[in-house]
């Protein structure tokens, strides 16, 4: 019987599943052990697997990722938590210059089967330095795989796939989704990286979304359906690898493309997707590609401002309606 658990709980479920299976899976990060993580996403794992496999670290993000990298190249499968995704900035070198490039620079002598977990995105009124959606930064770097689950089941299944992958996987947990619940399959659950999911089939327009925004896109599609506009909502789930064929199939069907993206406007995944569509699906397009994003601003702290900044159901509805009108 499938269980209903929270997105937050799913993180620990996914990790525990893999840690039980493979003794080379180890966890490190700030406050992840005794405290169970500042998001409580690793709660219970110290108790289950002991301090050798679940380790608290100093506030030293470079040291954390360096440790993960060195361990991965010598036989372990580390999963490192960076807490707030914004903190990737203090260890960006390890991510973009070291972890991403090691296999290529050494012509395959070094493999890095590691996962970096991030608490990603806004909506919690934490302000500009604790609310960023960094998937675009990571997608831009050759050598990284980038995953953003939108449901508890995907957290478990994609986590398992990420841990088993031979390449470094950036695993972005949406902070705003931690308290949300959903069913997860019974027994071992392993998903596949690089596969998008059509969350709602539709024929009038394709809405591509990721993470928290998938739910807003679905909300919008629901409202639009009431007006007789039938939207397809595609949850990309993974930016690298990117499931271009599912994207293209949807565009071929609807001819109208919308992206809903939590990050600021410039150079995010939405830009890349729009450019792919403009290049590869040009003759299927019946109208301009429309992107819904946060404006190109740092995220503000006040609730009234943050709500106005991040794409809302209403904004998606308005843009799609206008785009089809």
């Amino acid at each position: 019987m499938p269980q209903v658990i929270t997105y937050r709980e799913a993180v620990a479920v996914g990790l525990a599943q893999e840690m039980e299976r493979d003794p080379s899976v180890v966890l490190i990060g700030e406050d992840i052990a005794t405290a169970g993580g500042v998001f409580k996403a690793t709660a219970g794992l110290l108790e289950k697997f002991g301090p050798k496999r679940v380790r608290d670290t100093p506030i030293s993000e470079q040291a954390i990722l360096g440790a993960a990298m060195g361990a991965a190249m010598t036989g372990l499968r580390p999963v490192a938590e960076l807490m707030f995704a914004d903190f990737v900035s203090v260890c960006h070198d390890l991510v973009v210059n070291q972890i991403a490039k090691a296999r290529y620079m050494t012509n395959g002598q070094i493999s890095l089967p590691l996962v970096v977990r991030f608490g990603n995105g806004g909506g919690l009124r934490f302000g500009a330095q604790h609310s960023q959606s960094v998937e675009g930064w990571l997608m831009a770097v050759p050598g990284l795989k980038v995953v953003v689950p939108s449901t508890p089941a995907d957290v478990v299944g994609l986590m398992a796939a990420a841990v088993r992958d031979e390449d470094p996987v950036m695993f972005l947990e949406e902070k705003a989704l931690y308290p949300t619940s959903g069913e997860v399959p019974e027994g071992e659950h392993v998903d596949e990286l690089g596969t998008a999911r059509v969350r709602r089939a539709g024929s009038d327009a394709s809405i591509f979304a990721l993470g928290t925004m998938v739910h807003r896109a679905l909300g919008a599609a629901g409202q639009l359906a009431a007006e007789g506009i039938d939207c397809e909502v595609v949850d990309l789930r993974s930016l690298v690898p990117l499931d271009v064929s599912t994207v293209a199939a949807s565009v071929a069907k609807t001819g109208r493309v919308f992206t809903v993206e939590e990050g600021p406007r410039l150079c995010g995944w939405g830009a890349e997707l729009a450019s792919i569509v403009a290049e590869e699906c040009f003759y299927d397009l019946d109208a301009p590609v429309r992107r819904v994003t946060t404006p190109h601003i740092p995220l503000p702290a006040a609730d009234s401002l943050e709500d106005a900044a991040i794409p809302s159901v209403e904004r998606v509805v308005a843009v799609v309606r206008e785009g089809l009108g």
Partner: protein
Amino acid sequence: MSNDTVKRPPREAEGSRGAEARVEMYRAQVRVRLFEKEAYNLFLQNLVKGTSHLAIGQEAVAAGVSAALRPDDYVFATYRGHAHAISRGAPMTACFAELMGRESGLMAGKGGSMHLTYAKGNFMGSYAIVGAHLTIANGAAWSAVYRGTDQVAVAFFGDGATNIGAFHEALNLAATWKLPVVFVCENNLYMEYTPISQVTAVAQPAADRASAYGLPPVLVDGNDADAVHEAATEAVERARSGGGPSLVEAVTYRHGGHSRADPGKYRPDEEVAEWLAKDPLPRYRTRLQGEGVEAPLLDRIEADARDEVDRAREEAKAAPPADPAHLETEVFSYGESSWRR
């Protein structure tokens, strides 16, 4: 020189250690304590929506250091920065309003609790990425030297910050360039939930590192405003007279949890009890009274602070929320956010 934050004429110097100054240090601690308690209440009432990191228990550090500074000195703090903002003159109403996301907030709701900034008081900001502002404080100090003023920059930070790269880079540059910076480590024994001792190679995370930058170790009782003030005065004088930076470690304790509603349960009961007994406020009050300061004067200070806080809270609560019409202002100097020309 183009930035007008530096043109303000200095107000008269503070920093005397006379009885009056010490009474003012008491007032400073009381004001912060009451502000922080109120901030916590507002959080519990869901009026502070984001996060907040309180300094209850640590007030003596801000009070002791601030009293050693001139108004034209620069102060940099962390996300645990309410105390420092208030100590530099940030109006309480605007601080509460900022915590509650109001249009009248110190930064009109754009920053929130973790980023209080009051440039008018040369309080150059609260920074929420651990360690970053130590390097920025260097810049203000370098600028002061370059401009030929004798301003000093102070950076407050936690014990946990001593293990991040930016700490090391900042200390080395400051020492090499002999910058007028006072680095004040508020060692409250914990990072978020993990004891600093568990993740640090030395016992005193700041003081035991001073020699790595050619600096003498300075360790003070962070629950004693006088002790902090003395150490800070010495460090500030050294900085002002061209002697270079100092690294001061003030050992203290936060009474509550790390942030928001964290009950701080990871700390042994005896430890908490021991530190509550060392609460800087009653301790300082008792000392002042022992030295002849009249109780009614101190009562009065407490009552005034209570009034100020109550008034500020009510004013802030009555203020309208931050206006989405201003969502995109102040990204760039021309006032808005456009990335197009």
